[in-house]
């Protein structure tokens, strides 16, 4: 039973880490970035390069973040900027970008599965259950991500400007906030976060050009359901992620794989604002 609990929490943590970048982008510009999966992949490959250069893990993570952020910034400036009034087209264009990035990665690193050694291996004993140490670490990582971005959003000038733009762009501009700059930065941070999550899951997953894709739909659904706040994202990750684990454990994993998508669709049908303000 305790294992199931741990599975739920750690799964939720992973989902939260991977979705947060998508959420931040969606929250600020109401754009769904279908290249998110590609950025996750980019992050993983950045980790690979870092590891090959022999960088310590503590440096690899920022490397991944920065790489993703740069990709994100370019994406915003070249593609997304022109599509704010066409959100559906933005989905398509970013999907196209996802294809492009995937192929570029393939052309550079080849199609084969790559490997990164986990920084933390083995298991820890929690109340009699020995459990994957790295997954436990993921809980911490999720909490850190949450804290960092809450403080960034609530504690800093940039965060203040960002919230201002979210709430009332015109007023913000009138007060001297350069909203297009805020957008650029936000998109960069969101993409960086995607890449960071890519780096964080490498020890649990393979590194290959499509590794991000399986996560995309779940992340997308969670963001839709949580409507834009990190808090509600955490909630929905716990609820839907938990449901996924429960279904996988007690019914079957294949159905489990569909849980998030189906539940999210139903939740949104009944309650279009999802878990937001719930």
């Amino acid at each position, binding site marked *: 039973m305790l294992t199931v609990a741990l599975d739920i929490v750690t799964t939720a943590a992973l989902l939260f880490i991977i979705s947060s970048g998508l959420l931040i982008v969606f929250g600020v510009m109401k754009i769904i970035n279908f290249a998110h999966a590609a950025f996750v992949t980019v992050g993983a490959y950045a980790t690979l390069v870092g590891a090959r250069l022999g960088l310590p893990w503590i440096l690899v993570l920022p490397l991944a973040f920065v790489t993703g952020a740069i990709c994100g910034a370019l994406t915003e400036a070249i593609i997304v900027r022109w*599509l704010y009034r066409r959100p*559906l087209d933005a989905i398509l264009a970013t999907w196209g*970008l996802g294809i*492009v990035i995937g192929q*570029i990665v393939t052309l550079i690193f080849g199609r084969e599965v790559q490997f990164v050694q986990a920084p933390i291996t083995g298991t820890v004993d929690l109340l009699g259950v020995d459990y994957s140490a790295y997954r436990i670490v993921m809980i911490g990582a999720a909490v850190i991500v949450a804290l960092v971005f809450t403080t960034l959003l609530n504690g800093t000038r940039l965060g203040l400007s960002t919230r201002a733009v979210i709430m009332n762009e015109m007023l913000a501009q009138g007060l001297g906030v350069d909203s297009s700059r805020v957008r650029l930065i936000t998109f960069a941070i969101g993409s960086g976060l995607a890449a960071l999550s890519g780096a964080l899951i490498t020890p649990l997953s393979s590194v290959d050009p499509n590794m991000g894709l399986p996560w995309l739909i779940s992340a997308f659904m969670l963001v839709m359901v949580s409507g834009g706040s990190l808090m509600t994202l955490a909630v929905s990750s716990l609820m839907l992620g938990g449901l996924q684990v429960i279904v996988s454990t007690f019914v079957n994993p294949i159905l489990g794989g*569909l849980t998030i998508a189906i539940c999210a*669709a139903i939740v949104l049908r009944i309650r279009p604002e999802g878990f937001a303000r719930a």
Partner: protein
Amino acid sequence: MPEVRQFSQLAPAPLGLSAKWWMVPLAVVIVGSIALAPLVLDTYMVNILIRAFFVAIAAITVDIVWGYCGTLTFGQSAFFGIGVYALAIIFTEYGFGSWQALFAMGTSVVVAAGVGALTGWLSFYPGSTPLYASIVSLVVPIVLVQILYSGGTFTGSSSGLVGFETFDLELESWFRLAGLSLAAVAVVALIIMRSDTGRLLKALRDNDERCSYLGINTSRYRIIVLVLTAIIASLAGFGYAAFGAVAAPENAGFTFGTRLIIMVALGGRGTIIGAIVGALSIEVASAYLSGSLPYVWELIIGIALIAVILAFPDGLLGAVGRLGRGILPSKASATTQLRPVATADTGPAGSEVAMKVTGLGKHFGSLSVLDGVTFEAKRSELLSLVGPNGAGKTTLIRCLSDGRERSTGFVAIAGHAIDRLPPDRVVQFGLGRKFQAASVFETLTVAECLRVARTHRARPSPVSTSTVLELPAAAIAVVERSGLSDRLGEEARNLSHGLKQALELAMVLALEPEVLLLDEPTAGLTRAERQAFADILTSLASRDRLCILLVEHDLDFVREISSRIIVLHQGKIALDGSVQEVVDSSLVREIYTGQQAAACGAEP
């Protein structure tokens, strides 16, 4: 015999006429080339094209759902897959034969229709967003593919189904069969999309809200479209599997769904031909390129998609088309005759009290925007609603026209309580609402906009474009008065602000409403236009005995035309009386020139 007025178009329609004669040879050419092509092409090309034809049919359905109705759908692949597997499973289980074939086809149609209906029910409901519809369309293929994977030998799991016996036709016959069915689907689609029904679909895409305020149940139309396209797509899949003798999960998957979208996006959304061009060119090109350079090919596709979305949102064909339009004179739809309908005698019929509002309130959490609003309005009354910004005027209008808006209180339109009904139902009680910013169908012509407005009175034909447009006298009056009558063939987006306002008013009047709600109709109009508007409104009240509720900032205008004024302040009715009363009221003066009105809560 009602009189018939004939209006000549801006551009006489040489193309419109010529459209007739070149159709025939074109058809001959198409059928001919489909018949002869397999003799000329090599076997490989023929094979590729046969599959491409079936895929193109699926692409057309995507084009209809997305390009015409505005829902970005990833889900058509699922319906295609249903067709594929219906055939494969039934032929595998029961062998091949005529009854099995019919059974399989029936199954694919029924299942596709069912899934389509379910998807539609999930995706489209009053207040659903296009994004949500896309989400659902995303889930459908994903779920279906998982089902196929875990279906064991029944569905063949990842290996798909193979080795079942199927129609044994010559390659040439397959080619002709596929080619002709594609041509057939394309022609039917073109006819429908150019018919009045097609225009209605475009209207849904352009402005869903306006549609529902014209009494159209938009969700129902969208669901019907989805079900029909689902069936077509499943039949395409049926043919695909019948030819290939293979069923594979990819045929149903989300990736194939996106590929269909890419085809339509590149070819040109909202143009059936674009979908075909996109599908065929991508299928053929990939057949030649993907084999030798798989990654570069994918790369090209991705870049092309991005480029097209950014540079030519309406696809390559659209871009070409725009070029073409630059050279050729704009195509004008066949001349439209306006004919007045004998409107129900507005005399004693209908209760004198046209609108009854009691204790209406609207609250957001603790903050209340409207509170205890109570009034009655009779027919022939021209009632103006004034008040400073944020007094709640527009909110009140919304609460009167959409049953789901208000928090408390009772509203009856022409004697019908509106309960919690959505706008399209409330409108059918005899309510017409004109929005603040002119809300028309940008890509439709004036005549088409007006026709859409008549939908609930005259069912649009699915095949033809009627040349006669029946409108109530009031609407015709507006059309003539505003000069729209000379521009019936013009696309609404090319109209001046004033003409758009007039067009929207005419559209609302085409509903033959008993109660007319107008939100700042004169904002941004020229003096002349405002004068015209004033006359129209007064005559609507006096001659057509409409009950008009007008939200207006411009107090000169209000004083000029109103028979009665309601002053709204901070969500409450501050005063309800004749123009004189209001003009003389110090309270109103105070409200307008600033001082906090001590007695602002006072009910009249």
